[in-house]
């Protein structure tokens, strides 16, 4: 045993103290939470043994929020208040709504927030708040299963997520009161889950992670060298997933059956798709129409979708400067990779069978849990280090609506880069800087991240001011920007207005509101408890009086007691204040004290049978 514990900087935890940490896969269709317990990462299940929490949140009129399977079951009946696939809205602006499939069943509220607000019976909610509800449910599940408070979590995001989407995810975690160790790209987590970093047969591995989820497709090319992961390239399609496969079959069913029941067709399509993974031929049914579909028919129908994913694979390989036979491992992620046609075509494309041993729904959460365990400091000897790249270029608007790139995509993060700008008018004291993210040339084709107003530039002739704008991207891929006028050393004031995110004030407001709601919930519970207590007290008095009032009480005394009881009854019915009800109970008990005392006398002992002294003692605790 070591006599001296030499701790690394930042690893200053006491030895053997296990810090509770979890990995969260916040998915479009389903979400999961996993944790490392006794050395192995496992997905944590709910009380019904379910690992997958449907990413569906239902808002009820009384303010209650239902998350998961129960919410999903109510989706068809209460579609306006039941929010599904909210991940697609994360970090998106109101102007994006049209391009997001166009068939969102929700009503959006008009508001001055930069992010869309969905109208529900319980009030307006943003995607961030909906995601926070999912995270809260997972947090609760984890803390119950692990028996303590989580010190921190690793939350996975698609490699393709831009700054606004990553920020929105972190904001949701903040609302859910979770400490985020790191946002981790989903494909990186999957590679970690397969322990590819522990293999030592090759100096350098190239790993392709093919992630076809419910709503998104990501392809990532990773390079792994001595425990260090690098993301060499990412690509994909943020609006292509298993749902699209369902839609293809659903359309076929509707066409074949002549029915208009698109919701039912979609449900049937999903069932058929899943059944075809294990069967060559499956019967299809919709209302009174009956048909049949073979795996071959299905494969042909969805081939364009699979091809689309392979095209993105090609492009990612090219970005990485590799050809497909240089790839050592292909990792399959996402429930949609269970489809035999997907496994087959991906295997053909890379010329090797893909890795499918770990449940493709759980693999990301498992990898995130492993990383969370390392980051929590539970494995001080662990060498694993994940290096990420920025998925999309960051740039600024320049003359003529063009974009000047400041940090190119696939640049390793964290990174700090400064660029200088100047004024173009004499005595110009303010300047607007428009931050954009994306690969295209014009402003309209890229994602607007924020607009900066630079104020307080000292008056100078045009071109004399030197404004240094510094971009800082942290290890989570989140951007902060600072600006300074160089010649005079004046630090120009910067106002940030995120184009698609929530401002810090809005987040603070939501946290405050949720705390107020929690407070209101507590008040309501206390009131309910006191009213129940009042009922119990009144009943006890009633039954006691029914038993012996005529024997030991004078008519005046009966009237006094009845009056006290009526008063309590009245307050119980009319008050919405728990303390008031509690006081009324006390008053009645006080009024009944003489009666209780008299009943204690020997000659009324028999009448006491069935009653407990505590019925008339302080029952309000």
């Amino acid at each position, binding site marked *: 045993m070591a006599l001296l514990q030499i701790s690394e*900087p930042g690893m200053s935890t006491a030895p053997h103290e296990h810090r509770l940490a979890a990995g969260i896969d916040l998915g479009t269709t389903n979400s999961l939470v996993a944790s490392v317990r006794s050395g192995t990462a496992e997905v944590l299940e709910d009380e019904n043994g379910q690992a997958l929490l449907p990413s569906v949140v239902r808002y009820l009129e009384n303010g209650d929020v239902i998350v998961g399977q129960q919410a999903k079951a109510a989706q068809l009946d209460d579609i306006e208040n039941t929010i599904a696939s909210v991940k697609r809205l994360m970090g998106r602006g109101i102007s994006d709504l049209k391009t997001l499939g166009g068939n969102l069943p929700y009503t959006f509220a008009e508001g001055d927030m930069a992010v869309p607000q969905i109208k529900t019976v319980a009030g307006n909610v943003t995607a961030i708040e909906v995601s926070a509800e999912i995270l809260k449910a997972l947090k609760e599940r984890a803390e119950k299963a692990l028996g303590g408070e989580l010190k921190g979590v690793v939350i996975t995001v698609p490699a393709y997520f831009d700054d606004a989407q990553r920020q929105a995810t972190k904001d949701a975690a903040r609302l859910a009161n979770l400490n985020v160790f790191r946002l981790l790209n989903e494909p990186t987590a999957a590679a970690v889950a397969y322990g590819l970093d522990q293999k030592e047969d090759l100096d350098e591995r190239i790993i392709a992670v093919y992630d076809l989820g419910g709503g998104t497709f990501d392809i990532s090319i990773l390079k792994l060298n001595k425990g260090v992961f690098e993301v060499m390239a990412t690509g994909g399609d943020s609006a292509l997933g298993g749902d699209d496969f369902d839609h293809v079959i659903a359309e076929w069913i509707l066409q074949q059956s002549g029915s208009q029941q698109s919701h039912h067709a979609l449900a049937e399509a999903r069932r058929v798709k899943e059944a075809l993974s294990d069967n060559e031929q499956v019967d299809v049914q919709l209302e009174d129409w009956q048909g049949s579909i073979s795996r071959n028919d299905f494969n042909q129908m969805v081939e364009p979708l699979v091809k689309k994913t392979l095209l993105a694979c090609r492009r990612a390989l090219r970005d990485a400067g590799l050809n497909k036979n240089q790839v050592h491992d292909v990792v399959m992620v996402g429930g949609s990779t269970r489809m035999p046609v997907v496994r087959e075509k991906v295997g053909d494309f890379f010329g090797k069978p893909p890795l499918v041993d770990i449940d493709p729904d759980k693999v990301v959460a498992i990898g995130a849990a492993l990383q969370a365990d390392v980051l929590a400091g539970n494995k001080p000897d662990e060498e694993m280090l994940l290096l990420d790249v920025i998925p999309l270029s960051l740039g600024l608007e320049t003359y003529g609506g063009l974009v000047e790139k400041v940090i190119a995509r696939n640049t390793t993060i964290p990174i700090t880069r400064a660029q200088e700008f100047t004024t173009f008018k004499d005595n110009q004291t303010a300047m607007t800087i428009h931050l954009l993210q994306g690969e295209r040339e014009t402003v309209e084709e890229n994602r607007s991240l924020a607009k900066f107003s630079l104020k307080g530039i000292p008056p100078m002739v045009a071109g004399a001011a030197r404004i240094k704008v510094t971009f800082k991207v942290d290890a989570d891929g989140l951007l902060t920007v600072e600006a300074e006028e160089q010649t005079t050393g004046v630090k120009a004031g910067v106002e940030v207005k995120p184009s698609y995110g929530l401002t810090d004030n809005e987040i603070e407001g939501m946290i405050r509101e949720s705390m107020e709601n929690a407070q209101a919930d507590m008040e309501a519970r206390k009131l309910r408890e006191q009213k129940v207590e009042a009922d119990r007290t009144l009943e006890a008095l009633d039954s006691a009086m029914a038993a012996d009032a005529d024997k030991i009480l004078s008519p005046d005394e009966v009237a006094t007691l009845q009056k006290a009881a009526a008063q309590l009854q009245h307050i119980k019915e009319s008050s919405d204040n728990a303390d008031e009800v509690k006081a009324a109970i006390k008053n009645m008990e006080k009024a009944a004290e003489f009666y209780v005392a008299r009943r204690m006398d020997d000659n009324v002992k028999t009448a006491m049978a069935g009653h407990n002294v505590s019925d008339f003692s302080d029952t309000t605790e």
Partner: protein
Amino acid sequence: MLDFNQNYFEIFGLPEKFDIDKAALEKRFRELQAQYHPDRFINGDDAEKRLALQTTGFINEAHETLLSSRLRARYLLKLKGVDLDDETDTTHDGAFLMHQMEIREALEDVKNATDPLARIDDIAQEISGEADALKDDFIEKLEAGNLDAAKEDVLKMKFYERLCQESKQLTEKLEDELF
């Protein structure tokens, strides 16, 4: 703590010249990351976290600079006291600019070719050949101490960098359309 006064070549233990040992650069890069990355300081105090962020930001910037031939060339000039401004400095070589326009026109014409993909591959090859020649010329000028001419080459490299990007984007677009 990493010494921020070192130049980018010193950080990676590489000799100060244009041709670099990329394997050595990558190896040293990973060693530095393993040592300084913010993930190593998750449980550290704020000062440690900030320093980790600054240090890896610096390492990554140095790495990016040495990886790109144009940025590396520009950095070598900077070490020799020649600074250039991407916004205002540009080449005034008329013949060179004419040639650039010709290549651009050729790129625009690709869509009319009988086999656009083959045509774009040809042009891309031409572009990378010329870019390589420019690098050789830069090395020669730099070693001869002809810094003004070397600077001119770096300015021209930017044009080739743009052309490479554009031909790549065009290839992607053509492939998308063919699908």
